[in-house]
């Protein structure tokens, strides 16, 4: 039996493209239209992985053995209630319905609660807390933007359809696609003669007095054209930079200085230096002019800002630049959120607690402080003594020192496949692929909620992560109720937290971290 499902939402990146056409045969996706290569890799192939977890496991004598769901739930609930200070981490590849239960569980436990944004765009959220943010939904940019700046990100590889759906290569009501220009540019490149002529002419028109930079090309004349233009700032020439009208090569870790300098230039102030971050100030001046002259400009930034030196301060200044530009024209700025529902995790946490990530419930009310309650910081200080990881793989992405501390204490994982962290778990739950086997809500990078679809049935006996969490929550409540009645009868003695002794896994960690 073959069926075609339209308007399917892609559960990969923050773009949440919702125009996929999926062909399903015998409960298996066999074909997919409109999606990018990354989408195809997951939706047609990846989710069928042989590495799929099909039943719950518990580590017994150092080895993971299959157990019943009840046993796994009981064990997980016991670990979490016994722990003095557990950490619940992950959430960004789960539906917002699941995240919703997660907050309730954390509150019930009095635990720390953090999501993956603390290792991606958490700094962007922190920056908005310092200075606010002028932003817009992606369609607004599609309809109106005549200047698109990608800063420290490479959507061509990380968000493959971003350019084609939302920015330079899409037709909007007031601005048309730049794709034709791009094709012409390619053609021009193909012809040596034309290139030579173009370069010659360009040089004739531009003032030769301009100082030359060894690493950065001078702004091309095409930046003055009407219609859409795209500028890429990055530390290396990426595919996105290839299609841009202008690529500016930035010295690593100097974005902050460049934003500062550009702000001065936009505000008509003089600088005492000749170059900033490897870019001659005269070039920056021209770029600032292009920005001021735009009808509607948009800056998208990526992890190159949030995870390089300065982190949220970099973003803060990107926002400050955008704000300054709004005094002269219209400008918006937007983070290129990664996981398909990382924005949702921030959103759901915020409406229930007031805070988007880095939460702690140990006081009975929500506390927030990145640096204090963010997962890596907690783990590196060895503050928590049990961890639950859901829909994330810190095993592959956390620093060694954090993972080593995580492995000293019990670890519960909820993931669809045997990724690095599942293999390290003490209680390992199987779960459904959200957006493929499980419906739910996800928030696009511009915080528009979109409903994920269920297109195939999950393997038998594999529950949703929401169900697992609800059952753990219920069990935790039962255990707590029993404890209180017991404590009323006889006061319990303090027990030192159990350190885990696991030889083979510790070797694993080393391999992971190195």
């Amino acid at each position, binding site marked *: 039996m073959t069926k075609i499902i339209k308007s399917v939402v892609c559960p990969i990146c923050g773009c949440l493209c919702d125009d996929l056409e999926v062909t399903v045969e015998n409960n298996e996706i066999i074909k997919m239209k409109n999606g990018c290569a990354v989408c195809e890799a997951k939706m047609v192939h990846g989710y069928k992985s042989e590495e799929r977890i099909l039943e719950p496991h518990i580590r017994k004598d150092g080895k993971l053995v299959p157990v019943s769901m009840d046993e796994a739930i009981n064990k997980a609930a016991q670990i979490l209630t016994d*722990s*003095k200070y557990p950490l619940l981490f992950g959430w960004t590849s789960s539906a917002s319905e699941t995240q919703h239960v997660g907050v309730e569980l954390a509150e019930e436990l009095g635990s720390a609660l953090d999501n993956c944004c603390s290792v991606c765009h958490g700094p962007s959220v*922190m920056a908005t807390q310092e200075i606010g943010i002028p932003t817009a939904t992606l369609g607004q940019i599609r309809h109106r933007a005549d200047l698109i700046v990608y800063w420290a990100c490479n959507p061509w590889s990380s968000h493959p359809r971003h350019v084609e759906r939302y920015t330079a290569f899409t037709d909007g009501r007031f601005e048309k696609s730049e794709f034709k220009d791009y094709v012409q540019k390619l053609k021009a490149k193909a012809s040596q003669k034309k290139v030579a002529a173009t370069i010659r002419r360009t040089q004739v028109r531009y003032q030769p007095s301009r100082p030359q930079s060894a690493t950065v090309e001078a702004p091309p004349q095409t930046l003055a054209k009407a219609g859409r233009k795209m500028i890429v700032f990055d530390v290396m020439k990426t595919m996105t930079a290839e299609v841009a009208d202008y690529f500016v090569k930035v010295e690593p870790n100097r974005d902050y200085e460049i934003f500062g300098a550009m702000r001065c230039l936009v505000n008509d*102030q003089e600088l005492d230096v000749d170059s900033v971050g490897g870019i001659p100030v005269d070039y920056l001046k021209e770029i600032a002019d292009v920005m001021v002259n735009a009808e509607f400009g948009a800056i998208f930034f990526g992890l190159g800002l949030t995870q390089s030196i*300065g982190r949220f301060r970099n973003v803060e*200044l990107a926002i*400050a630049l955008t704000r300054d530009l709004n005094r002269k024209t219209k400008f918006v700025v937007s983070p290129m959120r990664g996981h398909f529902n990382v924005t949702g995790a921030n959103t759901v946490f915020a409406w229930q607690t007031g805070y988007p990530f880095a939460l702690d419930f140990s006081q009975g009310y929500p506390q927030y402080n990145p640096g204090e309650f963010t997962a890596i910081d907690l783990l590196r200080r060895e*503050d928590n003594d049990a961890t639950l990881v859901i829909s994330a793989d810190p095993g592959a992405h956390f620093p060694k020192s954090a993972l080593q501390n995580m492995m000293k204490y019990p670890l519960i994982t909820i993931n669809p496949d045997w990724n690095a962290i599942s293999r390290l778990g003490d209680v390992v739950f199987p779960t459904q692929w959200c957006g493929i086997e499980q419906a739910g809500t996800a928030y696009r990078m511009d915080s528009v909620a979109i409903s994920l679809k269920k297109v195939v049935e999950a393997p038998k006996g594999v529950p949703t992560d929401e169900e697992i969490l609800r059952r753990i929550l219920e069990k935790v409540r039962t255990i707590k109720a029993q404890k209180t009645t017991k404590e009323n009868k006889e006061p319990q003695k303090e027990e030192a937290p159990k350190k885990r002794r696991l030889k083979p896994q510790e070797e694993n960690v080393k391999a992971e971290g190195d």
Partner: protein
Amino acid sequence: MITITPKRVFTVPVQAACISADVFAGKPLEEIKKLSITEGKETITLDDAFNITEDKTIETPNITLTGDFSKVKRIGQGMKTGEIIINGDAGMHTGEKLAGGKIIVNGNSGGWTGSEMKKGLIEIHGNSGDYTASPYRGTSTGMKGGVITIDGNVGTDVGCYLQGGIIRIKGSAGRYLGYHMLDGTIFVEKDCAIRAGACMTGGKIIINGTIELLMPTFTIDSIKPKVKIDATQNAQGPFYVFLGDIAERGTGKIFALKATNPAFKDYEKYL
């Protein structure tokens, strides 16, 4: 004097804002022992986690903490009078919102030490963490007054949104020193990492060591032979004086010792 020592090595964070001279004042020992704190998610009494003794013959300091308090947060939070001595490391938020009195740490201190403090004195005879004397997330009113001295080094983002008071650092300072500061003084005896004084609009930062890199948004003003740190003390120069952050139309001043900052010679052509 109340003496407090940990009963065990803490494996999870302990929040103990009640360890404060104000809170203890006038309370009998038994009552102090019953004060509520949290260890991780568990709510316990002070007595559960610490050995507490009282020596009525000594008046100052009011509280002496001895041992490893690096996981104990919020010691002396919001204290108005009195004195606390910590013989060991102190945790995060030590002396947060201090409104008077004195806290001495004979060891290192965690992040947000002296955050949003208004008055009083904090002495740290070791290093201090990130965000020392800086306000909570999203808050743009920082330390308003008082003095913090640090014998060792400090982390990043120290003295953000500073509105008054003095921060003296005998060691080196991390990135974003005096970020967005409005007033007050920061004095660093050794080196300073990048982006010092970024977005500052007032106040002064004096650096006796080398500045790793000055923000391009500062403009040279003059060379001065010396600069005042407080009413009693001057720093001996000559100093390059930079004005900024001009992106914020600020008039803050960075004093960089000429002898240790040869890289700034280029700026002299604008004088």
